[in-house]
């Protein structure tokens, strides 16, 4: 999806404006996910799963405890069955809480949207029985909740997500570094941020995550105004993070801004592609169920691509 695309109303199953008016984060997530489940029957992409289970032919050296004897009884071949624990997904949501996320030209800010997205993902994964963890950060790490799947854990996540964004700067490097240290089991890492930070840092740290075997998805949250930069009068722009003021005349600055913004976005995208991470730019007026389904589709495509590469 092109980033510079004007923020035309994207039609989804659930109206974003209505959704954002709901106060409870959990309720928002539930509505999105349920709507998604309902719609999934008509969806052409059914039959997929985040979980990938497999039977592997027994090779000497494998633990005989894992041999599936029922399959052996049926087919007279030794197959190794993966443990349920291993087949379950461990997902960590990395949510940006810096102040730049407080900007929003709709009635909600980027942070609110990001929280809703994170909550939706968490709810969705939780429904599937996957373990979900949370790491919120600004220039340093704010909250860390390890990935678990047990009753009450979801509520804890929601509470943590409801905290307002207060950080003064965005520093992606530190939390990524930390998550690498904390999580040693392979899993899914979902980074939800506006990525308004130098892109070089992102590259290095994301590389470490993928190197550690994690599946990485990057949701870049953007406000329509950040993309379009449709200001008319000359304004004194105030940077919410650095508290700097800058007098800008949009008439002259717009072109330059759009160029540099696109450069940044392209750089982020290419970094993700290089590292094999999913890159999803999300605009805050986009319906969340659509975002979710886009993501899943992209994952599936990637899975097919990998399969195709493997076949080749």
């Amino acid at each position, binding site marked *: 999806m092109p980033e510079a695309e004007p923020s035309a109303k994207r039609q989804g199953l659930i109206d974003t404006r209505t959704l954002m008016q709901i106060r409870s984060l959990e309720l928002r997530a539930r509505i999105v996910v349920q709507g998604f489940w309902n719609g999934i029957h008509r969806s052409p992409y059914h039959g997929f799963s985040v979980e990938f289970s497999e039977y592997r032919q027994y090779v000497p050296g494998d633990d005989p405890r894992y041999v599936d004897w029922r399959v052996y009884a049926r087919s007279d071949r030794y197959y190794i069955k993966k443990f349920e624990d291993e087949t379950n997904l461990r997902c960590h949501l990395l949510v940006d809480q810096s102040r*730049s*996320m*407080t*900007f*929003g*030209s709709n*009635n909600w*800010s*980027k*942070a*609110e949207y990001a929280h809703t997205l994170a909550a939706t993902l968490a709810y969705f994964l939780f429904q599937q029985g996957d373990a979900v963890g949370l790491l919120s950060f600004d220039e340093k790490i704010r909250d860390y909740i390890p990935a678990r799947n047990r009753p009450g854990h979801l509520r804890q996540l929601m509470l943590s997500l409801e905290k*307002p*964004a207060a950080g003064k700067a965005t520093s992606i490097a530190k939390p990524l570094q930390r998550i690498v240290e904390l999580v040693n089991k392979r899993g899914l890492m979902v980074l939800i941020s*506006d990525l*308004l930070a130098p892109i070089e840092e992102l590259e290095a740290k994301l590389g470490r995550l993928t190197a550690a075997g994690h599946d990485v998805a990057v949701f870049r949250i953007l*406000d329509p105004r*950040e993309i379009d930069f449709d*200001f*008319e*009068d*000359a*304004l*004194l*722009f*105030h*940077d*919410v*993070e*650095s508290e*700097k*003021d*800058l*007098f*800008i*005349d949009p008439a*002259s*600055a717009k072109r*330059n*801004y759009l160029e*540099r*913004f696109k450069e*940044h976005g392209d750089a982020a995208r290419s970094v993700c592609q290089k590292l094999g991470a999913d890159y999803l730019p999300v605009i805050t007026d986009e319906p969340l169920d659509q975002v979710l389904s886009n993501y899943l589709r992209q994952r599936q495509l990637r899975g097919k691509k990998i399969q195709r590469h493997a076949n080749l």
Partner: protein
Amino acid sequence: MSFLAPLFLLGGLAIVGPVIFHLIRRNTKEKFSFSSLMFLRADPPRVTRKSKLEDILLLLVRCALLAVMALAFSRPFFRNNVNASNDPSAGQRMVLLLDTSASMQRKGLWEKTLEQAQDSLKELEPADSLAILSFDSQTTSLMQFDQWEELPEPNRIPAAMETLKAAEAGWGGSRMGNAILTAAELLEENEHLGPSRIVVVTDRQEGIQLEGLQGHEWPEDIQLTLKTVEPETAGNAGIQLKPLQEMKDSVTHSIRLTNSEDSSNEEFRLAWLKNKQNTSTNNVTVYVPAGQSRTVKAPRRPTGEGWQLTLLDDAHPFDNTLHITPLIPEPVRIHYLGNEQADETDSMRFYLERAFSTTRLQHVRVLAHPTTTESIQLSRNDDRLLIIGDTIKESQVDEIRKFIESGRSVLLALKSEVMSGSLTALAKSGPVPLTEARVDKYALLSQLDFEHPLLAPFNEPRFSDFTKIHFWKHRSLDPARLPGVKVLARFDDGDPALLDLRIGRGHLFILTCGWQPEDSQLALASKFVPLLYSMLELGESRGKLKSNCFAGETIKLPGKSDQARILNGPDGKLEVPAGSTTFNAKKPGLYSLEESQNVSFAVNVSPRESKTSLLPMERLDALNLPFSAKNEQTEKIAQNREQTLIDEQTEKRQKIWRWLIVIAILLVLLETWLGGWLWRKPSGGSEPAAETT
């Protein structure tokens, strides 16, 4: 237009505020919070539009609001011409008080007083008004405000000057307190908006009387100026006669000689002068240090008429002559109605005749009349007391009652029961039965009414003991049968002992016993004589006259006359109007009523006037007198204060600030409406700034 609080006008400078806000608001309003400036580059601001004022109408309303508020707080008012009289320069009222007391008779003092008074007149503006009063022991009006205002303006000052020239120093004491209060009353009488001023020209001698000034509430707008005149030579000595009662014999007089504090002379001579010529040789030299007084015996008075005791060697002669009347005892006749013989030692008459003795002041004669006398002859002026010791005849009742009604005292001593008829007749009441009281051994007096003037002289613990007087017998009567009777004393058995029945202006005293030894010990008691004298004093005197008076005092003349009486004084004959019993002696000297040679009195200068040293200003300051400002600066401050007061009143009447506040409220409403309207009005299509969480 004037302002009561002009400093508040500085609040108008706040107008600068909205002007500045309207200039800089543009920047503050259009500050926009953005997520990151990392894609933006600094752009030079366009300053051309910044100096442009926005929303001129709103700005004007706001400026007007501030200006009106500042104006309202500064409390503006218009000084209109109607209040021109409020202007202190327009008209002040001045009362000029001239001290004409005896001490002003000192050499050169009166001339200085006139000079000071004339100076005060010169200070007057054409619009001012003036009254002139003079005071010694009385305050006299020389010129009223009305008189002043009636005169055409150019004639006013000359008329006042003439009035001053006509005035002269008198001989009375100086009651300055009264005079100042009179002047203040005069100023307060009619409402006047301008300042009021009292100017007192006085010698401020120590003997000045300031009573009434202490604690007086002075109106705020009255100012008092004291102009003190001082004589060329300081110091003065004066003489006065000591009260007669203190003198031992009538030939030599005790003289008190007082020397004032600022006196330089300490040695004086006392001599009798005839026609101001020192012809006698027996002068007495007296040594009195300054500030002290001494009592000396005057030299013997030479025989002959016209001698005056004079103090010599004093700087100021005004108080050096003492006028002394020859001492003539007052004749008093006391009548006794009874049948006793003069030599009966157990009779009431015997004790009565011995109770009254002739003194220097009174020549008392006791005349006894038998009860058979048809008329007692009680019509003379010196008939003072009648004592009835026996039953009286019907024919005497009217005369006695007339005697009492004219203000005399009659004592009815009920020495027997048979006198009941006399009592009934005199009291003109129903029958009052008398019975002989039963007395066990003796009776004592009790329940004495010391409040009554008859017994008032005994109203002191050392005199009030009547328990030593024993009464062997007494009569009892029912006081309820005598309407209007007052029981002054009772016996210890409850029977009334002494009663007072008022008839006309006089008293009928009823004693229910006698004082002969058969009845009681009263005649032998120490209370007897004072009691009789007290009775005598209660009767009004017809011929008694204070023999030594002071100039300026009102003297009560004896008797009453329907015709004008002639009084011989030091300046010749004076006429006392018909019906008048008082006389105001203006000049010291010897006075005598022409009708009787016996009625003469001396008028001297008040001894207070002899105290001529200056009264310390501290004593005047202590009275909190409204002295006018002592220097120009404070005077100016006082004037300003007065102006402020007037302004405040004018402002209170006009109340312009209220209208200004109303305008301000309207402007606030206009501003609110205008501001709201401008805010709602879409300006350039931009939506309100995004909310940030």
